[in-house]
């Protein structure tokens, strides 16, 4: 594996871990698949379509999202929204995220000394 590929693989692993919390966070508001893709890109978290769509399905299966088919347009669209359970999970994840940030910052600070 080249250095670049190696770097890329760890980078991907880091991103993958953050996906769920990013998606759940966005879905306080209602989005459909492609619009969520664009939203994430706009905040600097580009994500592959073939990762996002299955992820949305999985989160819904797990009860963290609710969905709604909008048939008012010429084409039906599936809109997602975070559920009660999803909000609880998201809040816990956020707390964990903050604690993790603190720990990682601690390590980085020690490295600088």
């Amino acid at each position, binding site marked *: 594996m080249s250095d670049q590929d190696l770097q890329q693989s760890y980078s991907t692993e880091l991103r993958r871990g953050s996906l769920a919390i990013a998606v759940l966070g966005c879905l306080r508001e209602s989005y459909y698949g492609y619009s969520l893709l664009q939203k994430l890109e706009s905040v600097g978290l580009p994500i592959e379509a073939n990762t996002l769509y*299955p992820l949305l*399905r999985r989160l819904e299966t797990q009860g963290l999202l609710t969905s709604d088919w909008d048939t008012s347009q010429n084409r039906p669209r599936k809109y997602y929204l975070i559920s009660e359970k999803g909000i609880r999970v998201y809040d816990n994840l956020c707390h964990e995220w903050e604690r993790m940030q603190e720990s990682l910052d601690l390590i980085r600070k020690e490295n600088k000394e």
Partner: protein
Amino acid sequence: MNNTVERYIYDVVRRLPESERSDVESELKANIYDMLSDEPTEAEIESVLQKLGRPSVLAEEYRLHKRYLIAPAVFETYLQTLKLVLPIVGLVMFIVGLGIGIFNSAFVLNQTHQYAELFSSMFASAFGLALSGLFQAVVWITIGFAVYDYARSRDGKQQKPWTTQNLPELPVAKQKRISVSETIAEIIMTVFFTALLIMIWKGIIPAFFSVSMNNVTITALFTSGFADYAMPFIIIAAAVSLLECVIKLVVRSWSVVVFATVCSVNVVSVVLLAVLLNYPNYFTSEFIQVIQSLELGRFDFVGFLADGGQQTVAVVMIALMSIVSVVTILVAAYRTFWKGHTFRESIVTRFDD
């Protein structure tokens, strides 16, 4: 609905379980068309579908449960099972095949003396049976593991919790291990030479000397009465020896059980030989005549023969066999009981630097 898009969606969805298909189809359809403009060109469609990637990979992402034939968790066990079972199956089938080949050959059926035909029949059926036996074993073991895995994932049960009780014993030191290949070679040799011996003595294969010397034609080395008498002895000796090999295969390291088996097998063999050679007149008179006529009275062994001292020959043979047996038992004792470095000890000494 565009044909390419439809085909793409179909290729993804057909790989998913039936219950998932229509939902995923609707979702994918909506998502793809959202990514396309209102009048998409083929190039645009191509590019969007490329972004979604290979249908098989996308289907894998949608899949809820990873599917394996043999799950990674049990793969090691699977391989070990194969390593354990396949040599035994191959060997047993080989031997059975040899037997079937013998009895199916024209050699036995029509009593024709076509050695080539006999041996080709033996080994053809031996290899054929062994091969098909091996394939069957692989298939059934694989199916067994796949079914076990399927049942496990269905129940969603985790494996039983692991404790230190489950740890295996340390492997035996190298010199304590009994080599599988050697044991199997031993089995094949035993079977082969026993079969050969039986056929020679029964006169199915004419004996070594179809020679005319000094007007005496020897057709057989041993008298036919002796050959018949010896038959059960040969078979028992072979069976006992095979039993020893089987125990070695199963236990695979030098233990008290193996040592006891080796001892008893050797003792039994010597006893059998002693009883067997008590039979009066086992060499044919023709053979003795030839030896006498060779005037080799100078050499002790042949001299005994010439004087008709078959008893003495018997004693010599039994003595030789006893020496071999004693040596074998001593070697077995050494392998079993010598407290050499065990695996544990060799690790400890390394860390003691």
